């Protein structure tokens, strides 16, 4: 039976393969774009169904594994985020992708992500998970071997950890589909709860099992989400690829990890984990761990983002940090926190997607990536700049933007959950976010323009369309966060956050986006009146500035392009000495050396040694037989 689900799932990859096989300029773009539009269209088409709480399922059997994919309230939410980002990615790639290769793997990861989001059993989940890793890896491999390998190794470690977890679940329950497994976990959780009260029951999963499972799955999802300390792949991988693709890569792929944590760790085995692992200061221990991982991720990644000298790296670290917010929100363990997390999934996707599209446009037009090479592009690419500004406002959490709405929820959730230090991390993180987006603004758009950027043109139309979509979404969801919140409430089947389209009311707080917007506009109008009242302004070039009386020539570089945040680095010099990245590199180096030693000493080429190996095995057999 063919329904919407397989179409949504498989159209992108088919389109990708077609685009790759044909590989004719013009045709492949059309096919690719079609492959990205169709899922969005179909997802919108099924919205009424899923909004009603019904679900659409597609099942198939592959390798005698029963696989099923479902679009329901939960999965649709993630799927639509993925699909919209995918669409904008495709729009971007029309301009930036130079070969069918990019289309193939970009669209392959599109399919894979949708597969991960809709899968209802561990096999298809794992399958698409691997496919997603692989496709994104191939996108990076083309640009940078080292980065891609780092990404792949960590991802594969994660995936294999997940595989172990899956195998463990399978070994205990004999099932691979989510429904059955959830039931088993739920029942087991009850029993565990009872046994805590002195009632003895045989448990399907022991405490050790749960610790193992938690570790396995957390590793798996943590890698993909880029959680500390498994984040080291992200900055390199996000930056070393087609930047249009990064829209999707950072906007959606990292959400797969979040989705996994949300779905598997929380919804599936949350109760069981809670009973098995116990609590810490009243918080379920496992959530507490997740929250702290999130908090540390936020802080570390944001600090590093501030200190970057490369545009892509900055955004990459920022992505890592933003995903930290989501983890942190999940870790609060309250419905409010989950809502915040889900909302932030959406808003991070749209503002970070927008950021990357802007970056793609800038890099496409200038061919540069380092801050020191940029400057004054606002005049040359005004629309792109405007979109960049929207993204900046949203990321920095300036009120009437989507980014603020979700962040606000996370603040409220974290503080209400009585996780003050974690909440403190958010404050720090958002200040840092402020700092790094300003860096983005200053270095790219303002200041003196290097002369070689004088003939830069505005971004190509498809990219602008893509940016436009995301920009509008940022504003719409910012002013009317209720649109999202209402949907999220459906997920919980109860109103977690009340209010209307414009107003969000949590138990202890309120935020009326519309009134803030209106007041802000009013304020700006008042200020504008003041401005208009004043005398006319005369436009002067950027270089015509106060320089303590020194005349400056055109060639003289007035912008601070390098080491903008040097003082911060100085303040942090103690901490910057340590780097997980270097730690992993060294670990990798060590294992390679180990491999060398092993290889050279085991396979030493002397057949007599080899005979000894045989003799030793015989000896072991003999000892075992005799003793």
């Amino acid at each position, binding site marked *: 039976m063919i329904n919407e689900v397989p179409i949504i799932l498989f159209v992108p990859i088919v389109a990708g393969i077609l685009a790759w096989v044909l590989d004719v300029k013009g045709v492949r773009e059309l096919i690719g774009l079609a492959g990205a539009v169709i899922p969005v269209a179909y997802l919108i088409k099924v919205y009424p169904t899923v909004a009603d709480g019904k679900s659409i399922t597609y099942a198939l*059997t*592959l*390798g*005698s594994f029963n696989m099923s994919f479902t679009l329901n309230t939960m999965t649709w939410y993630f799927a639509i985020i993925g699909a919209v980002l995918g669409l904008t990615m495709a729009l971007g790639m029309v301009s930036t992708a130079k070969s069918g290769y990019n289309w193939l793997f970009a669209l392959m990861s599109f399919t894979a992500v949708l597969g991960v989001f809709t899968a209802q059993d561990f*096999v298809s989940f*794992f*399958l*698409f998970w*691997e*496919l997603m890793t*692989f496709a994104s*890896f191939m996108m990076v*491999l*083309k640009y940078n*071997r080292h980065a*891609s*390998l780092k990404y*792949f*190794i960590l991802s*594969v*470690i994660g995936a*294999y950890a997940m*595989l*172990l977890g*899956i*195998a*463990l679940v*399978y*070994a205990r329950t004999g099932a691979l589909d989510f429904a059955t497994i959830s039931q088993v976990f739920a029942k087991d959780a009850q029993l565990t709860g009872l046994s805590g009260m002195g009632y003895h029951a045989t448990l399907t999963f022991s405490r050790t099992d749960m610790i*193992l499972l938690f570790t396995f799955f957390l590793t798996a999802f943590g890698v993909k989400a880029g959680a500390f300390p498994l984040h080291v792949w992200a900055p390199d991988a996000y930056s070393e690829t087609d930047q249009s693709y990064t829209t999707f890569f950072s906007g959606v792929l990292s959400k797969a990890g979040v989705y996994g944590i949300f779905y598997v760790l929380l919804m599936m085995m949350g109760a069981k984990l809670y009973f098995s692992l116990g609590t810490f200061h009243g918080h379920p221990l496992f959530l507490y761990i997740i929250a702290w991982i999130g908090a540390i991720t936020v802080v570390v990644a944001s600090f590093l983002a501030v200190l970057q000298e490369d545009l892509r790296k900055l955004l990459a670290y920022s992505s890592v940090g933003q995903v930290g917010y989501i983890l942190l929100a999940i870790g609060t363990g309250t419905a409010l926190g989950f809502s915040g997390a889900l909302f932030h999934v959406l808003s991070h996707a749209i503002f970070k997607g927008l950021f990357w599209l802007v970056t793609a446009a800038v890099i496409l037009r200038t061919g540069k990536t380092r801050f020191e090479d940029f400057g004054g592009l606002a005049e040359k690419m005004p629309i792109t700049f405007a979109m960049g500004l929207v993204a900046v406002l949203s990321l920095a959490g300036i009120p009437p933007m989507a980014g603020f709405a979700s962040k606000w929820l996370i603040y409220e959730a974290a503080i209400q959950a009585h996780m003050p230090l974690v909440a403190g991390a958010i404050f720090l993180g958002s200040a840092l976010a402020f700092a790094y987006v300003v860096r983005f603004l200053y270095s790219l758009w303002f200041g003196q323009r290097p002369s070689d950027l004088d003939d830069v043109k505005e971004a190509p139309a498809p990219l602008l369309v893509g940016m436009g979509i995301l920009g509008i979404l940022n504003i719409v969801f910012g002013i009317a966060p209720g649109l999202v919140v209402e949907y999220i409430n459906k997920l919980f089947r109860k109103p977690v956050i009340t209010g209307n389209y414009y107003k969000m009311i949590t138990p202890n707080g309120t935020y009326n986006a519309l009134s803030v917007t209106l007041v802000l506009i009013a304020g700006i109008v008042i200020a504008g009146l003041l401005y208009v009242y004043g005398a006319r302004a005369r436009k002067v070039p950027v270089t015509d500035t106060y320089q303590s009386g020194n005349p400056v020539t055109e060639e003289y570089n007035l912008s601070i392009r390098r080491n903008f945040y040097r003082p911060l680095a100085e303040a942090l010099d103690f901490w910057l000495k340590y780097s997980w990245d270097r730690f992993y590199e060294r670990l990798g180096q060590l*294992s*390679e050396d*180990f*491999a*060398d030693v*092993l*290889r050279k000493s*085991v*396979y030493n*080429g002397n*057949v007599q*040694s*080899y*005979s000894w*190996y*045989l003799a*030793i*095995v*015989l000896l072991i*057999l003999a000892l*075992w*037989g005799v003793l």
Partner: protein
Amino acid sequence: MNGQYASLLIAIPLISAFFVPVIKAASKKAVMPFLVLVTAAQTAAAAWVFNEVYTTGKPIIVMAGAWRPPVGINLYIGHFAALFVFIVAAVSFLLSIYNFKTIKIEPIDKYAMLFLLLMLGATGMIATGDIFNLFVFMEITSITAYALTAYNKTGEAAEASMKYMILGGIGSSFFLIGIAIVYGSLGTLNMAQIAQLAGSMNATAAQAGLALLIFGLAVEAELFPLNAWAPDAYQAAPHPVTVMFSAFVVKAGLYAAARLLYIMQSVGSWHSVLKLVVIMATLTVLVAEFSALRQRNVKRMIAYSSISQVGFIALALALGTQAGVDAGVFHMVNHAIVKALLFIAVGYVAVELGGAEMENFRGLGRRMPITAFSITIGSLAVIGIPMFNVFWSKLRIILATVDVGYTWAAALVLIASVVEAVYYLRLLHVIWFEGSGERITESAALGAIMLLLVALVIVIGVYPDYVWNLAQKAGADIFNVAQYIKNVPLMGVGA
């Protein structure tokens, strides 16, 4: 045709091998085409047998000389054997075409004979139902392998061959001791009857016998640390021979080991033996993958990878569960296809560019696109990327392994798999994104072969059900010993 015609599987290669000197006397050029013909015939016969076994669902018992087992030797062409005999034949057929391009060293007629006999040996090992006959076929296989390893007649080749011979010699001697113990205790050599009577053996003797049998086969099956010969032999052997080693020679050894393991399962210390094999298999995977990591010679690298995959298979087979055996068989099939693909492609590169050193692979994507593409698909499949066949079998193996409780083994082999991914991906980067060179015209026939295998990899990857069903049946064939005993028409001698 009645089932006894399955004996053609033995007869065809044998009579053809004997025919080669006659042909050579007539025309030396005819030898290679003759090889194609014979392997095609063998493939046809194997296909017929395969079809027969899988449609009737009953194994074919070939009774030589009309003697019913255990008096006579029987071939037991069950689901597994039918499947693998077909794979052996088909791979050989592809290789017989590959030979044209890769075998330039004289004497080609001898090569052709050995080639056929290697195929024969593997076929026999897989098909036989008699433990001593297994030894004979094992020796046919390994002696042919010794000869073929040294065929290039370079110092390296002779060295590799010599290592193989010494280790193989020790292994086969101890295997024979195992046979002696088993025969001395039971008075029969027929596997089905051994399975029937195994429980009655003296525990100590049975333990030693089983251990020695497995030890002997483990040398052939490349389990660490008995596999030290393997990388050398893989590297030094002519390219088609390497393909054969990896695609089915080692599989025959594995199968034999698994078969013996399971028919002896009523032996008291069976579980400890299984555990031992699991440990060895895990070590095999680990050591081989780490050894491959910094390898500069691609052929050797893939050889290590092949060994590690064999470790995977051995692990699965030694789990002692139906699921494990099924997964192992599935992996055998997949591995045969993938490694055939990889070795064919790498060998072709080595022939065209004068060696399998990593440097020669720089810019291969531009120089030999089809070959490079094949290597790419093969590598990705081995790593376990979804939509390629190995993914499914690896998944099955891990599920089965953890199911039995060997989580540590699963974890270790997965770590090794990470290492595997690293070196394959490095290779891919070298192929596609480094260096460049002028385009080389690729042979159409070889291109077709490689693309055929690529297609298989992808088809199985996308639709694994068919092969998985085959593997399940074949796995049941190995695992279900009671059925095995029932299938063999034992006459009531002594029992």
